[in-house]
């Protein structure tokens, strides 16, 4: 299967700190790929490098066969990425429906906007809250709304940074099912996560980061069977 996203020797240095070092990451078209690691492993920094929030210190990023390293986030979105950041980032004073409208109006014909908005509202189970300001939603609902805004772009690659942060176990499970449902339609998904229950629920392939470097990669079964991964999560000493 072709890789939709590749990073080659990607690194980011903050002063004397190597937050991410020489990361080669490959995300295959059509898979759910999870990026995991303990706190401080560099997951979120790598995510921000991929989406363009941070410029890399070295290395490059290839998306759909094109080098996007120098592109700004909005340009990467136009190339087919769609992004949900770690903390809920919605237009708080605007109604839920208008949040989706702003996301959809870019590429959906005017006469189809209402129908698409309604479809997303039903998918997100937010139909009853369509007129509420987004800031009045619960934390979990805001996370869902933001995922909905990301989906509205009909991306080739959906990038989710800790999409279940602050969610209840039920909401987390529902989010996992939604991601699997989207993947079933052919959408590639890259998820940064440290909740291993959630990772087990959705992941097909996993890359493990540790101290800013790729520590292990493989299928979810291989990663779960890897004692070294268990050790870094539990804080036990290891050799590598």
């Amino acid at each position: 299967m072709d890789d939709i996203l590749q990073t080659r020797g990607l690194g980011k240095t903050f002063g004397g700190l190597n937050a991410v070092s020489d990361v080669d990451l490959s995300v295959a078209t059509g898979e759910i790929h999870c990026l995991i690691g303990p706190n401080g492993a560099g997951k979120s920094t790598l995510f921000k490098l991929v989406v363009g929030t941070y410029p890399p210190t070295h290395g490059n990023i290839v998306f759909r066969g094109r080098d996007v390293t120098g592109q700004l986030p909005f340009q990467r979105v136009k190339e087919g990425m769609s992004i949900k950041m770690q903390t809920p980032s919605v237009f708080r004073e605007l109604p839920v429906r208008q949040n989706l409208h702003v996301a959809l109006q870019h590429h959906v014909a005017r006469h189809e906007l209402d129908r698409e908005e309604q479809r997303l509202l039903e998918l997100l189970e937010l139909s009853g809250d369509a007129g509420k300001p987004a800031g009045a939603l619960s934390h979990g609902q805001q996370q869902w709304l933001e995922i909905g805004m990301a989906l509205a772009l009909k991306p080739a690659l959906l990038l989710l940074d800790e999409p279940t942060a602050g969610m209840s176990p039920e909401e987390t499970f529902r989010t996992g099912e939604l991601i699997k449902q989207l993947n079933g339609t052919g959408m590639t998904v890259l998820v940064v996560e440290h909740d291993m229950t959630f990772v087990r629920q959705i992941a097909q392939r996993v890359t493990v980061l540790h101290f800013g470097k790729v520590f292990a990669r493989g299928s979810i079964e291989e990663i779960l069977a890897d004692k070294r991964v268990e050790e870094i999560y539990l804080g036990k000493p290891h050799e590598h």
Partner: protein
Amino acid sequence: MLRLVNGPQTVGNGPAFWITFLVVLAGALIYPSFADPYDVGNFAYFLLWVFMALGLCLMWGYCGMLSFGQTFFFGIAGYSYGVLAINFGGGTMTFAALAIAVILAAVAAAILGYFMIWGRVGGVFFGIVTLSATLVLAFFLGQTAGPEWRIGEARLNGFNGMKGMDPLNIPWFDDETLYFEGPSLYYLAIGMIVLVYMGLRMLLNSRFGNVIVAIREDPQRAELLGYDVRKYQLVTFVIGSALAGLSGVLYTSWGQFITPSSIGLPAAAMPIVWVAFSGRGDITATMVGSFLILVAFQTIIVHSQQAALILMGAMLLVTVMVAPQGFVLGIARVAGRLFRRGPREGAEG
């Protein structure tokens, strides 16, 4: 296009609003027929500032950019109109001077805005940079008293200001010339306000308006939806500043003079007070509120300039503490709820 005059970004979208709008407009149109021409001239003076307030409302209330630079562009356009009208020899060329002066203000806004927005100047620093530009222009013009400071026939004249330009005028019947002064300036201002107001409503309820409101709420999220936030901010800044330029031209035409004091710090703070008090979140609230404040301010200033300035400061303080969304907008929303049809719900309907 016309359907865009109603939408989620503007208060007042139902028949009741538009009937009220037409009644007020009709009242404004027949007012000169029974009012003293001196009062009509004063009302024209109040109206010419509304463009500057609407421009600030667009930038600050809708796009989240607090600009202290409205009098900077007011001054550029006002002085440009003076220089051009004097050098063109007045007459019908005054309308060409108007157009060129507003374009010059827009170009200045595009240059200043480009460096600020592409340089990622945001938040409070946006206000600081625009205020600095304003003060620099006011100080510069203040030291142009010498005879060497002239452009063609037009002397800048330092703190005394530039004078001697023709007011806006057009040829009229029987080889007469219609000078836009008093009632004719009043009607010109009313016509321009209606055009600008309707144009802004359409802009704000269009896709462009949806995006700038989103940028106000969360610029990063807007960018992550694929919008080049910088371009939207720049276009908004240019339109808002050009409207300040239009006020500058009309002011210069009205008084046939312009001085650096109309640009400096006290003048630069005024639009902020008008828009904050009125309600920066809506152009109708800004238009109505700014006009009412100007009437009140001018009524008090006749008796005491100090009292009027203190009143402005007190109004800003009370607004920030009691009604941060603005008094006029607050009253409109309460009225909307009383009619069981709040602005937001009305907008969706």
